[in-house]
């Protein structure tokens, strides 16, 4: 039986190596994904958990705040969050 510290170390090191390897591998989106508009990303990502929100639901400043909150729940990428929030602020 491994000790908890060993287990934690293994998990942390494995996770870090995975992150580093993926980062060095250039975690890049394909051209098709990069070209997606905010409206498209809004329709694809929000509905994974709930109905797609109406842009009129919040003010532009509120959308900035809601965007951060939602990113921390859904773990969308920063680029996706920025595009979705820009679309919802219009």
């Amino acid at each position, binding site marked *: 039986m491994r000790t*908890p510290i060993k*287990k*934690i170390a293994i*998990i*942390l090191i494995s*996770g870090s190596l*995975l*992150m580093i390897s*993926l*980062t060095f*591998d250039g*975690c*890049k*989106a*394909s051209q*098709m*994904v990069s070209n997606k508009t905010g409206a498209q990303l809004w329709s*694809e*990502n929000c*509905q*994974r*958990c*709930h*109905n*797609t*929100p*109406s842009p009129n*639901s*919040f003010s532009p*400043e*509120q959308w*900035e*705040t*809601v965007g*951060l*909150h939602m*990113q*921390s*729940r*859904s*773990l*969308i*990428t*920063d*680029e*996706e969050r920025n595009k979705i929030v820009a679309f919802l602020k219009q």
Partner: protein
Amino acid sequence: MRQSQTLIKWMIFPLGFLISTNIARAQQTTTVDSALLERVSALEQQVANQKQGESHFMVAGLATFGFVANTTTTTSGGKIKTNSFPDMDHFEFSPLFLWRHGSKFLLEFEPSFDGTSLGVNWADVSYFVAPGLILRAGYLVTPFGTYSKRLAAGWIDKLPTDPTGVADYPPTTDFGFEAEGGFPIGSMKWNYDISLTNGLQLLPDGELQSAGVVDNNKNKTVTARLGLLPISNSSLEIGISGMFGTVGDANSPYENAKSQSYAADLNYVKLFNPILVNIKGQYNYTFVNSQNYINPLDLSVYTFDNKTTSGFAQVSIRPTGAGVTFVKNLELAFRYGKYVTPEKSLWGQKSDIIDISLDYWLTWRTVFKIGYQSDKSTSTAIENTGEEAKSESLFIQFAIQL
């Protein structure tokens, strides 16, 4: 000479008139300009007073309430009927306070009233460090599966109830630290979420509960989830989670007790025009290594295989492409759940739960649900083994995100 004097007089008069007229005009213009300037200055001050600061505060949150009628029949002959507006498991009023400091910091605080007590769902601070890295500290939802963190809110859940056991076992709100983020990989995406928290506490009867703000031992619990979205339109997400920690109190007979929990989750949402299909599922497994427990009824020592499993599979359909608005706003949801607690424990049971609900979406974040639940359970507890119970419930529920 006289003629030239007369000419000068005649020239002086119009010239004087012209000069005096221009002076008057100039004075008028100056008066108008200064009034305009004052107006512009006032407007500038007004704009300056209203300019956006780098901090922003807002209140969101949710409320859920309704009616539940229940009939429970047991093989020992008991039959109990209840109804209420509603019971504590189906009432919630939770304002969510969000403070944003620039574009990097977010403070979240969600108190919650469930009808009997005022608690806190989470209270944490997030730091958006860099693309793909969010750090969080405080009282947070640990990344075990996705139901507790993403799907439990009444205005998100398609059914009036939480899937039994999935949302609350093992407990997934804890004090600690978390790192998370999402990355693209070509046309796919992946995300990670890892937390280090005080962890769980093993009670003398064998149950697990959250240790709370003061840890019960020196070891911390690691919880981690990896998610993958293999399709470019993000319609499918699959995830695996693990939670590992020492759960026994320090300097107690349980100081070497450890728990291991694993979860697998799936989420698939796709429009097959005109029907939006939504499939979700999660399976939880929790195990505590072998221990001797104390029966609180007679203080005798007993032991059992401390293993708990729970899970659900859910499908809902909504005709979002229908021409009629009323039909477009309807959604039909079905869920099968299973919950198995440790055999020969004080609370051992096997439950099969079926939920069905017809929802009407008043807005994208406001829903009215009429649901039915059937819960058939068989006791595997150290006492009353084999006793069966059937519970049927009718729910009428309204949920809103504020």
